[in-house]
């Protein structure tokens, strides 16, 4: 990996990734792409190494111009791409073009590109289906959330993911899909983050599923490891924090109010309309009832990724494990 194309450079994850790639002496060029001007998207510069291009990847012509213009000139050998629309409230053909068609076009053109050898798609844990009868620990072959009732932001992510997966082994490219846990940070498209931003967090009474969240630092490290690797396939990338939803709410400094499940949909629809928030209960209903935690065994074994940086919780709650006389971990004894 010497020259890298990053397509979602204007997001917090993209920005952090670009910064780290720029600090990597093994990287010659970083070609960053975003919909906004560079002074807004990436408020820094590294002349000669960072190349920013404002482009609308929803337009096939822009994708072609990008790949066979600056990407070819800079001898880009690796592409990191992600669904481009973070806000689940946005929908329609234009959004689909940005999320899915841009992925298809980028992949297709990369296959015929003179210098690109590696294609990495950053995907999301939301592509997995969560249900009572499915495993809590989600491996890469877990069923996908392809139900017709899923909203467009999930359907688009699943379609982009599957579009890339179908080319694995058939394409001249080395393809990897990285399905990452939810990132508790603004601008990452995390529904959980928006949910936690409420002054009061309502949750379904009687249920308290386990959730896993990742930090931008770990996410970016996983993406860099994937870019640097030759490995093909799908990789789950969990974060360091696995905890019940109610604990996440409390650690975020919010009261967690259990209410009957049937109330949550209208409550959050009202919040969305009045407050303009992005969180929608409907698509998250099952995740708020049943546990789903990414199993990162494959990423650990193949990419060498191990979550290391935990969420900086605003209100650390006393760990209950410390309430008992001692705490023993399986690694310490039982095999």
């Amino acid at each position, binding site marked *: 990996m010497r020259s890298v194309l990053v397509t979602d450079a204007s997001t917090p994850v993209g920005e952090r990734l670009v910064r780290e790639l720029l600090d990597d002496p093994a990287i010659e060029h970083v070609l960053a792409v975003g919909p906004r001007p560079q002074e807004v998207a990436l408020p820094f510069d590294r002349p000669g190494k960072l190349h920013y291009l404002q482009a609308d990847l929803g337009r096939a012509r822009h994708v072609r111009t990008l790949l066979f213009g600056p990407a070819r000139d800079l001898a880009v050998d690796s592409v990191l791409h992600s669904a481009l629309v973070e806000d689940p409230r946005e929908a329609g053909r234009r959004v689909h073009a940005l999320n899915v068609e841009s992925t298809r076009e980028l992949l297709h053109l990369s296959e015929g590109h003179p210098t690109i050898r590696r294609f990495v798609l950053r995907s999301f844990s939301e592509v997995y289906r969560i249900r009572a*009868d499915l*495993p809590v620990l989600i*491996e890469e072959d877990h069923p996908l959330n392809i139900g017709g009732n899923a909203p467009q932001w999930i359907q688009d992510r699943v379609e982009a993911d599957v579009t890339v997966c179908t080319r694995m082994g058939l394409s001249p490219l080395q393809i990897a899909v990285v399905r990452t846990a939810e990132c508790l940070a603004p601008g990452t498209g995390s529904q959980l983050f928006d949910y936690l931003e409420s002054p009061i967090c309502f949750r379904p009474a009687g249920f308290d599923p386990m959730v896993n969240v990742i930090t931008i630092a770990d996410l970016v490290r996983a993406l860099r490891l994937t870019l640097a690797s030759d490995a093909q396939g799908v990789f789950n990338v969990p974060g360091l*924090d696995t905890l019940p939803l109610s604990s996440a709410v409390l650690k975020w400094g919010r009261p967690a109010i259990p209410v009957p499940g049937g109330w949550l949909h209208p409550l959050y629809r009202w919040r969305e309309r009045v407050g303009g928030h992005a969180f929608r209960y409907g698509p998250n209903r099952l995740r708020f009832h049943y546990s789903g935690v990414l199993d990162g065994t494959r990423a650990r074994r193949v990419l060498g990724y191990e979550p290391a940086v935990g969420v900086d919780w605003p209100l650390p709650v006393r760990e209950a494990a410390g309430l*008992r006389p001692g*705490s023993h971990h*399986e690694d310490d004894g039982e*095999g």
Partner: protein
Amino acid sequence: MPVPPEIAWRIAERVLPAAERQRLADLVFRDEGHGYDAFGLHPAHVALGLALTAPLYDAWFRVISRGIEHVPSSGAAILAANHAGTLPLDAMMIWTDVLRRTTPPRVLRPVADHFVPNLPWIGTFFTRGGMVGGSRGNARALLEAGNLLLVFPEGTPAIGKPFSERYHLLEWRVGHVELAIRHGVPVVPVAVVGSEEQMPQVGRIPFLRPFGAPYLPIPLTPVPLPVRYHIHYGAPVRFDSRPDQADDPGVLSEAASRVRSAVEDLLQAGLRMRQGLFA
């Protein structure tokens, strides 16, 4: 009952004797960083669970168990037991017995039918105590992490077994031996005597399916009868088959028959040993 761990622990402190609380300090589990394992188990809730089941175990069912030495003190294994009694009190009593009588204390991971996680409060409370939904992926992950699984190969139909068919094993499913062969772990046969008379059913309402349960049972008594429980653990059944033979229906059928026979033998011996329903 998803109470916060500190409250769960405080309740347990009031109910459990100091020695029992001290034993729980040696509980082995994989802490994912916030005191819980990935499936939702928390030691404070295990302690709370024990505080709630101990009176049933000691005073109501007056459990006597034999053969606990057959339960491995470390490493993965599957406990396979007969199932009955309208309410899953047999699972709770085995869970309590293993927790109390193994050293260091081991938390059984009962594998429940898919409707159990759908039960508000109850599903969460059981999960905090170690229960997992009955998917192959959950069982595989737990065995790979060296856990003890509790399965009822007769499945949910057995819990509604008519009184006249008590201690007659129903169709014995093969999933547990498939897991055992694939992961090279032993199956410990378990017979529970007493549970099959605890709460006879006089009927069921099949069209009422609360939270996905297969039916709504109508028990003869509003609370379980105070029958005496006898839990018998047998010698572990080990299989010589290679892991790839876990796909062979013939191998699985033969292996399941061995486990079923072992449970059947333990049941018959336990029934012969028993001096009365309440004695």
